[in-house]
């Protein structure tokens, strides 16, 4: 992976020093909160419901074992012994104290990490396919381009005060695992007729209060043109984006107010203007970055042990069936380590778990790790002969759950257990759904089903693109949960449809159970997953299951 150059190192150290001084001046009273707030937000420090929260970037979800151990150290020394991985491939510490934050940032800088631009109206952490560099279906590893974008956007003087925050996601595979169509800019690698790799450029996607699927402004952008093109988009947005109304300030609104044709024309015009100015420097830099992302030296060894172990151990087989994905080297597998043990908080890892994961990556995974936007940890390169040993070490640690892509692999934002913006809790709803379906022993029978929960309209939990989405709201001083159905975050992105009136806190888990039982009843067979059944059947049978009293009334 990419290691900091002297320039990166000096920049992060200088920023840590600068922010340390700002913290000191806030504590001694030289800075007011109004003056300090924008400074702390630029450095990822929020003040939440019960405490400060520090959001640390994990660029494009890539992290090495040494960094993971340092996160464990920070969790133990300065927090309550755990960290929370988020849908933007960041990690959040929920309990830091203000005077400790400079020491935390310094500890992060020691391992080439930081919290810069994890908040504020700037380009946020660039997210990527969590199977990047390993996936069987990948055209090219998208991370060198993501790293180029990170370097370009970090402290970019023109883009530090955008109309609103700006999120970029990138995938190198035709199967979109990075939700690119729900980002301000989504970049999806494709090949042109000549077989050359380039990008489909998608603009103006986003969830939140105005959920919109992004629109393609370029079907094929040659790879070499990527940086000037992205800069052209930012540049046009920076000019047109509305600063008068926070709710209309994202590029998705600019797109709809300006129209795709006109916006595309402006982007192309700006692109023609700035492309010559890059003078090939971006490509020279990209070539250096690409060298840092060379794949590991894959081992060539027999895999028949794996086949035997699968036959011999049903627990291992169940885990292998759900938690492995196809690697481009057929002797290898991509391992997803679930941070969704039934009843646990989605995305949380204790310091001990982080250290174990770091050890396992070194022992079995060529020292590579990824964090997924679905709040799990990935070992992208595990030789099949090591899978049984790896699984044996996961057992009993809370990391062995065989549920990737199943009903208990739920995305949940922190919700009103932590977040100052939340209107209802999400974590306990996720915990109870997972616990309930584990009790019912239906999870594997139900099959692929993505539930995503947000505790407010800002949709950090991606509820709009959940097959089942749950949105927690405050209705007259009581928690209330709306259900959306049929959402999809992949290359066939769809915003879910609202099923009807919301449910009270103690009604939402039974409502989900009725919904899932209706699916089991109506599906054509185990081969038809929830989303396919919903697309075939439409809302009606699910609505009937959710609101049985209304059906009875209509029939009366």
């Amino acid at each position, binding site marked *: 992976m990419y290691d900091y150059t002297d320039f990166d190192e000096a920049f992060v150290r200088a920023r840590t020093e600068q922010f340390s001084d700002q913290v000191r001046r806030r504590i001694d009273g030289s800075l007011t909160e109004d003056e300090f707030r924008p400074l702390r937000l630029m450095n990822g420090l929020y003040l939440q*419901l*019960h405490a400060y929260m520090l959001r640390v970037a994990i660029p494009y979800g890539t992290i090495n074992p040494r960094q993971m151990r340092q996160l464990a150290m920070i969790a133990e020394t300065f927090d309550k012994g755990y960290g929370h991985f988020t849908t933007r491939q960041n990690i959040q510490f929920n309990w830091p104290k203000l005077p400790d934050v400079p020491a935390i940032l310094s500890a992060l800088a020691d391992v080439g990490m930081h919290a810069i631009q994890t908040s504020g109206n700037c380009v946020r952490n660039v997210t990527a396919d969590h199977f990047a560099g390993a996936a069987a279906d990948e055209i090219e590893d998208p991370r060198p381009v993501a790293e180029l974008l990170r370097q370009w956007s970090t402290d970019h003087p023109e883009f530090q005060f955008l109309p609103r925050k700006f999120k970029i996601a990138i995938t190198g595979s035709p199967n979109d695992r990075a939700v690119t169509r729900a980002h301000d800019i989504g970049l999806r690698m494709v090949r042109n007729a000549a077989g050359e790799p380039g990008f489909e450029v998608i603009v103006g996607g986003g969830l939140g209060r105005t959920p919109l699927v992004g629109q393609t402004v370029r079907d094929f952008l040659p790879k070499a043109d990527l940086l000037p093109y992205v800069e052209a988009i930012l540049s046009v947005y920076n000019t047109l984006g509305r600063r008068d109304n926070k709710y209309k300030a994202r590029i998705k609104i600019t797109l709809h107010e300006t129209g795709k044709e006109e916006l595309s024309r402006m982007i192309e015009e700006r692109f023609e203007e700035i492309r010559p100015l890059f003078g090939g420097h971006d490509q020279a830099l990209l070539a250096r970055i690409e060298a840092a992302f060379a794949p590991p030296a894959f081992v060539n060894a027999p895999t028949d042990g794996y086949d035997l172990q699968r036959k011999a151990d049903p627990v291992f087989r169940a885990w292998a069936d759900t938690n492995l994905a196809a690697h481009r080297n057929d002797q290898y597998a991509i391992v997803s380590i679930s941070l969704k043990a039934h009843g646990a908080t989605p995305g949380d890892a204790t310091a001990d778990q982080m250290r174990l994961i770091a050890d396992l990556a070194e022992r079995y995974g060529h020292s590579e790790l990824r964090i997924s936007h679905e709040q799990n940890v990935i070992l992208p390169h595990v030789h099949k002969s090591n899978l049984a040993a790896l699984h044996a070490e996961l057992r009993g640690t809370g990391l062995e759950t065989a549920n990737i892509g199943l009903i208990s692999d739920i995305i949940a934002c922190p919700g009103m*257990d932590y977040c100052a913006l939340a209107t209802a809790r999400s974590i306990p709803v996720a915990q109870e759904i997972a616990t309930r379906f584990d009790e019912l022993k239906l999870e594997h029978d139900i099959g692929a089903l993505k539930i995503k929960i947000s505790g407010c309209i800002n949709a950090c939990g991606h509820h709009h693109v959940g097959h089942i989405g749950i949105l927690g709201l405050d209705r007259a001083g009581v928690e209330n949960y709306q259900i959306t159905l049929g959402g999809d975050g992949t290359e066939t992105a769809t915003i879910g449809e609202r099923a009807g009136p919301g449910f009270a806190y103690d009604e939402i888990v039974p409502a989900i159970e009725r919904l899932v039982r209706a699916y089991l009843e109506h599906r054509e067979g185990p081969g038809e997953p929830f989303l396919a059944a919903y697309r075939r059947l439409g809302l009606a049978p699910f609505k009937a299951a959710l609101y049985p009293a209304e059906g009875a009334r209509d029939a009366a």
Partner: protein
Amino acid sequence: MSRAFTPKVVTANALLEGDVIYLTADDRWSRLHHEAELIEDEAHAQLRLLHAQSQRASAVGPYLADARPGPDGPEPVHFREAFRTRGPSNYRHGKQVEQSHV
């Protein structure tokens, strides 16, 4: 006719730790909701809020939250404020443990 004023407490977060704090009648910041001053008059509420806003070195983001009288002192009305008196529901962290030590 003007609507009846819902009683309030002044609440904020502590500058150093971020803890939820409440303004008491004797001008202290308490970690305990029931020690807060229950303010039953709108004009007085504004004065107390102004006072809280002047406490820049100890309190961040003070605001008025609805409250009601209870046997041991003011109690929160809204569930958000009730969560703030306790801490998160997924772990026994925050006030719910710190206070059980008292």
